[in-house]
């Protein structure tokens, strides 16, 4: 492997943003046909580095060689023309356009003369691409009608529609199910075989050994080390990544459960039915299952966001009639959504205003916002939750994912909520901050709150839960106690392989 040629060679890359040094003289190289993993916490500079490679940003200093030539991409198009394509972390698709239109966006094939776009050719080429990826999709379908996983595959097809030499994938698996990830990894293997190099960014440590060849670690905008993916020691890699040893990721005090905070009886909604579960004070209860099993839908229905079509449920022993988010919050329930940025936070507002946003009624009885009270409240949760920020007036949009999650928690704590639903609590949060979020969950439970957690990360479910309800196709198929929980057990019931359905 060492004998292979360098496809990309970067030396002394520096990038400054107003107020921060995003990359500090970073060296980075990618060989032909290798999967090179970029590892680092949020804010380490991974995304900045790949955006420089892909022509999204311009570097301030340093040299870059691609395919033996010195290059200086001024925009995305020039990088594309050189054979570099990037699949961004956020899906970048046009929902109102067809798959074919999305695949060729900005590079639509033309008919001869007249400047007329050749849509038929777009359809044909798209079909071929999709087939090459082993996907059975009609290229004439509007993207808004696809599932997230299918949309991700369209992104891959879009990247491959160019004549590429280097493909950059920024956290491609964060919204995929296990089966879809397997499919994606199969595709990556095939790309490798055909000589295409891949830069892969992921927070999922288990993926790195599976598909990576080499790993480069960045921390705080600096190059730390490059390791062989197959032989590297995970703990060592994590230590290098966070700059300190994380002693224990999961640190759970299992408390004796108290009174019931939630009980549902044969609850039925739009994508789930006959769900009967309960959560007690001091417990972390997980809803496990595949993406699409109906877990998020249960959470949204419990919070009064989606309609309930049958059954009933009780919060703190009181039956909830005609639920609405307003009523649920009043009763002491909080939902921490998967999509924090859009559904959980006001990104353009400071930390302080985010924290008091849900508790205005409680804090300011006469309807006038008093500065002192607001500041004190925000300072209190900043300290309690260890939100890393110079002050409480920093805009939430400028915080890292972990700190943003803490602000959401602070927002709910200030309302005196006693029942929390966490939907994917650590999505997009790096390892160092994950440990803190786990600690936070445990603290909440230890202080007597009840927690219902939805997570696609098996390790979280296994290591944090008092109990686990496994869902499949909209139904709860099994309740597992802490002693029975294992990856095999959960998957067996979630996939209905071997596990006997009790529904």
């Amino acid at each position, binding site marked *: 492997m060492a004998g292979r040629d360098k496809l990309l060679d970067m030396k002394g890359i520096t990038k400054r943003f107003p107020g921060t040094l995003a990359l500090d003289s970073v060296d980075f190289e990618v060989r032909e046909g290798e999967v090179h993993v970029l590892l680092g916490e949020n804010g380490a500079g991974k995304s900045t580095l790949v955006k420089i490679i892909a022509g999204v940003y311009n570097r301030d200093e340093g040299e870059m060689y691609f395919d033996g030539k010195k290059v200086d991409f001024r925009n*995305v198009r020039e990088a594309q023309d050189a054979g570099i394509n990037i699949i961004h972390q956020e899906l970048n698709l046009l929902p109102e*356009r067809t798959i074919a239109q999305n695949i060729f*966006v*900005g590079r639509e094939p033309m008919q001869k003369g007249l400047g007329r776009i050749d849509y038929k050719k777009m359809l044909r080429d798209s079909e071929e691409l999709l087939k090459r990826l082993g996907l059975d999709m009609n290229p*004439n379908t509007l993207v808004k009608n696809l599932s997230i996983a299918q949309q991700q595959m369209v992104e891959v097809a879009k990247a491959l529609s160019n004549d590429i030499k280097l493909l950059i994938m920024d956290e491609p698996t964060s919204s995929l199910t296990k089966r879809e990830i397997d499919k994606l990894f199969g595709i990556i293997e095939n790309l490798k075989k055909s000589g295409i190099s891949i830069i892969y960014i992921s927070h999922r440590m288990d993926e790195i050994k599976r598909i990576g060849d080499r790993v480069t670690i960045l921390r705080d905008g600096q190059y730390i080390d490059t390791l062989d993916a197959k032989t590297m020691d995970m703990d060592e890699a994590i230590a290098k990544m966070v700059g300190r040893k994380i002693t224990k990721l999961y640190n759970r005090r299992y408390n004796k459960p108290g009174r019931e905070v939630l009980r549902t009886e044969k609850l039925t909604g739009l994508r789930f039915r006959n769900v009967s579960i309960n959560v007690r004070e001091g417990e972390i209860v997980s809803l496990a299952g595949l993406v699409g099993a109906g877990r998020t839908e249960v959470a949204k229905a419990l919070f009064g966001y989606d309609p309930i079509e049958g059954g009933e449920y009780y919060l703190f022993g009181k039956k909830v009639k005609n639920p609405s988010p307003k009523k649920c919050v009043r009763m002491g329930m909080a939902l921490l959504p998967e999509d924090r940025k859009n559904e959980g936070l006001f990104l353009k507002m400071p930390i302080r205003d985010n924290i008091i946003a849900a508790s205005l009624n409680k804090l300011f009885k006469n309807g006038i916002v008093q500065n002192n009270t607001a500041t004190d409240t925000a300072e209190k949760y900043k300290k309690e939750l260890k939100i890393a920020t110079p002050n409480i007036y920093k805009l939430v949009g400028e915080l890292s994912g972990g700190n943003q999650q803490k602000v959401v928690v602070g927002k709910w704590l200030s309302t005196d909520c006693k029942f929390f639903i966490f939907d994917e609590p650590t999505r997009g949060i790096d390892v160092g901050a994950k440990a803190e979020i786990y600690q936070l969950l445990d603290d909440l439970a230890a202080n007597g709150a009840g927690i219902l957690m939805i997570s696609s990360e098996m390790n979280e479910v296994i290591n944090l839960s008092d109990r686990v309800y496994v869902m499949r*196709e909209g139904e709860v198929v099994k309740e597992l106690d802490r002693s029975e929980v294992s990856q095999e057990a959960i998957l067996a019931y979630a996939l209905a392989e071997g596990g006997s359905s009790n529904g």
Partner: protein
Amino acid sequence: MGKKLEFLRGINIPGATYGVIVLLILFSLITNKFLTLANIFFIARSSSILLIASIGMTMVILVSQIDLSVGSVMSLSGVIAALCLQNGMGIPIAILLGIASGIVFGIINGIMVAVYKFDYWISTFATMGVGAGLALVFANGETIPIADEAFGWLGNGKLFGIYVIIYITIILVAIMMFVLGKTKFGYNIYSIGGSEQTALLSGIDVVKNRVYVYICSGLFASMAGLLLASMCNSASPIAGADYSFDAIAAVIIGGTSFDGGKGGLLGTVMGTLMLRILTSGLNLMGFSAIWQKAIIGVVIVAILVGDALNEKRKKKNDMRRTYAYEN
């Protein structure tokens, strides 16, 4: 599912089409003065000027922005052309300078909105004021008569028994339908409106295309202004005042959404027809013109309500369908 969508692609009928049909039937039944050749011509002529102004507005709204200066540019280009004719500069110069004024406004709007990223409401609100003010200053606050009969032919003349202005409108609309549906510029407009971020990351020059869109808006507004002056044989400095409102209404009624990247010119054609049929029908029924704006507003609200109900139903169906698939 794919098959079904493909089938729908072929006959993507804007909702406003049904509105047009319903209004046609309704007014024909109510008054026998409605379905006459004279009235149909009247509707077609009055639609055409609004439609031309709405072409640009459609493009601007497709990239999820707005151009409030359209009406002012119409007034201004008419006034400029009338002054040129008054001073004996001839029709070509009059038309050229009229259109140039629209392009200049388009460039200014485009630079403010796309290059400097100023708020598009405020930017075009400001140029709306400047345009309206300049028109009044140039015209000295008065309506300028146009004596040139050849100029008047554009708005009032007939060719093979049909008004010239109708041909002009059809040609312009056809060209722009092609541009929006089949060319790179058109695709880029839909892409930028659908997601600016995605467009940017796909290597599309968002700034340049936005500037072009505003130039188009100014261009079509000025053409509409010239035709309006031609039709009236005079240029009033406030002639275009109502047209920004009407053009936005036509585009929205036609189903082009402020979310961007959704809708198109065919919808705007139907939206314009719907507005003008409504106006004409109400006139014939004896409603005074002062009612019209309020009624148009009510129609827009009705459409919003209909849309919202439709979306809700669709969402519910979608969820049910997913649920059914899973079982």
